[in-house]
């Protein structure tokens, strides 16, 4: 555009007479009504469900209000979906008043929403975003009567000392599930190259991918591992492109450590000229792509949230509570039923996996590393291929 200013005289811009004014207003009205017609299908009822006051279920605790705030949507068939399911279950069972607001983006949005909820009288406020500890702490400080939880994240030692007592943390050791999935995949005939499509480079995501690699190397130390960070939770096209590139490099099974963008990976797997399988996370997505989904790493996120809320409305959480869920204590990392993929995996392999891996983890013979307990940390890129599997109980 040229840099010429082009001031149009004021009088030329106003509607000159009543008729055109009416036309203008009528047009506006029409547009609004049209938009409204569309949006009304999507409107109402976003303040949700779960308020089953006196709806049967043990000890109708109709006064207990819980609010959850998340980055994703409650029906995104992934992380936030699981959280929502768990919260709904808990709310229905105990007759709680539950609100879920999704699609929050920036830290100050989380802070203001949290403040808004806390000042309107909720009893338990949950930040479903591991990076919001600072924001959660501020709300906890301002509202000492509200239990404020943030996760999935662990507190640092200094934080534990300075946090207000009404603050709580929760975490799910996602690498437990991806480790076991990796081990299973490595047993499959013909699989010698696995891959992972990851969202962002931070600990909660990285540990999933690296755990996958480590678990696979537990069975086959020479297995090849390729991973890409696509820097998005939702861009399905990028996920597809990343998966396609991996597949053309020879990857046979792809783990999804991203969110709803996983849909793109299904497409890439279908398009491949040889059989390629996808392993999504959090939500049993089998119907989404029954032809290419091998299984889902369930993480039992809904169970963890359910447990947390149940505890909070029951006897209440202790001061500075840290609720750490893993496979042993919380079934985190259960895999979804294999359904028609049993043949592809191999029945003897499934049995071997059950005894050598799953039972070993449960009994403690196999110790999957925590996020920050090893050197290099599982939360750092590349650790899955650097750590020595035999250190954790894998047979050499």
């Amino acid at each position, binding site marked *: 555009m*040229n840099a010429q200013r082009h001031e149009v005289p004021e009088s030329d811009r106003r509607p000159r007479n009543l008729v055109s004014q009416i036309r203008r207003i009528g047009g506006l009205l029409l547009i609004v009504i049209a938009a409204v017609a569309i949006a009304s299908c999507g409107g109402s009822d976003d303040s949700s469900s779960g308020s089953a006051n006196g709806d049967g279920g043990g000890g109708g605790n109709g006064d207990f209000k819980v609010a959850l705030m998340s980055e994703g949507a409650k029906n995104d068939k992934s992380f936030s979906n699981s959280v929502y399911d768990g919260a709904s279950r808990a709310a229905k069972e105990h007759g709680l008043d539950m609100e879920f607001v999704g*699609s929050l983006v920036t830290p100050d949005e989380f802070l203001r929403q949290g403040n808004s909820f806390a000042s309107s009288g909720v009893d338990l406020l949950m930040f479903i975003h591991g990076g919001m500890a600072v924001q959660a702490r501020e709300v906890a400080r301002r509202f000492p009567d509200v239990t404020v939880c943030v996760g999935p994240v662990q507190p640092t030692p200094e934080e534990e000392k300075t946090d207000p007592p009404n603050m709580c943390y929760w975490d799910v050791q996602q690498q437990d599930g991806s480790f076991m999935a990796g081990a299973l995949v490595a047993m499959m005939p013909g699989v010698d190259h696995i891959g992972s499509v990851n969202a962002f480079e931070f600990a909660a995501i990285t540990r999933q991918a690296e755990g996958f690699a480590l678990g696979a190397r537990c069975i086959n130390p020479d297995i090849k591992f390729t991973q890409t960070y696509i820097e998005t939770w939702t861009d399905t096209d990028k996920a*597809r492109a990343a998966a396609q590139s991996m597949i053309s490099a020879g990857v046979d099974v792809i783990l999804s450590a991203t969110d*709803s963008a996983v849909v793109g990976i299904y*497409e890439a797997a279908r398009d491949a000229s040889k059989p390629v399988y996808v392993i999504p996370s959090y939500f049993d997505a089998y*119907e989404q792509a029954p032809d290419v989904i091998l299984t889902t790493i369930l993480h039992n996120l809904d169970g963890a949230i359910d447990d947390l809320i149940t505890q909070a409305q029951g006897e209440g959480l202790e001061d500075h509570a840290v609720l750490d869920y893993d496979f042993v204590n919380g079934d985190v990392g259960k895999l979804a039923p294999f359904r028609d993929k049993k043949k592809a995996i191999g029945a003897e392999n499934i049995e071997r996996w059950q005894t050598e891996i799953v039972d070993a983890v449960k009994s403690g013979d196999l110790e999957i590393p925590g996020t920050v307990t090893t050197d290099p940390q599982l939360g750092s890129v590349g650790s899955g291929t650097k750590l020595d599997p035999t250190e954790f109980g894998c047979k050499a």
Partner: protein
Amino acid sequence: MSEAAFIALVVVGVQLMVPLLLASLGELISERAGVLNIGIEGCMALGAFFAAVAVTSTDSLIAGLALGLAVGVLTGIVLAWLYVGLGLNQIITGLMFTILALGVTAALFERYTQSAKGTLAPRLPIPLLSDIPWIGEMFFDHSILVYGAVALVPVCAWFLKGTWWGLRTTSAGENPSALDSAGYSVRLYRSIAVVIGSTLAALGGAVLVLATSGRFVSGMTAGRGFIALGVVVVARWYPGRALLVCLLIGITQALQFQVAAIDALESVPVDVWVALPYLAAVLAVVIGRRARYPSATTIPWIGQKG
């Protein structure tokens, strides 16, 4: 880089290019007529969502495209009324429209879950041409959506240069008073251009969905509409050049994913690859000569009635 990897790079690049190409073609026509439509990202999102709705209910590719197209036309009519009829400030209105549209699609997404379907647009290798070594696999072994989008490029070029309608549209942006003096309605030509622009953008969104299992995910347009604004300028408002620019951007984006397989480049931070397409666009703008928007862009036409 191995031969297979290079071929895969171009294949992925071509696929990534398509939604951006459609949006760019649309914006190109709109801007030629003198309307800067920053709401293009919103149009893409709406087209994507409704294409997904259609596909979920009917399992048909055609239905998805049709509904996406219809939504694009409707949106275009609304935008034309706002930009041309009411003469509202194009930049603010466009920005607000995008915010509005993204909000609507996010809200509807929360409300309606959809399930992914199977491949709706399977690969259609063009006989003979797809057997050419290298080039065949790279360019002639894609889905019909890709072929269709590329086919639209000469169509747009012919429309703009070879039809009276197209020439008048260009005049509406370049020299509206001349058009008006010749007895044509500047507003009409601008409105039509906006509708075409919005429709193509919505189609771009629809393709985005249809090429990935037919499911809409909130936020999936990921700024493509804004990138299209840049593409149009780099391409100097020529459809053919827009194709080349989009291909370039698609391939540099694909590079980000190919490098995972190249060990030598492992230590390069992923963010470098993410930034590369945009740096390439900047370079293209710098190397090219001065780009000038059509003279009357964003200036609402206030003339005699009509």
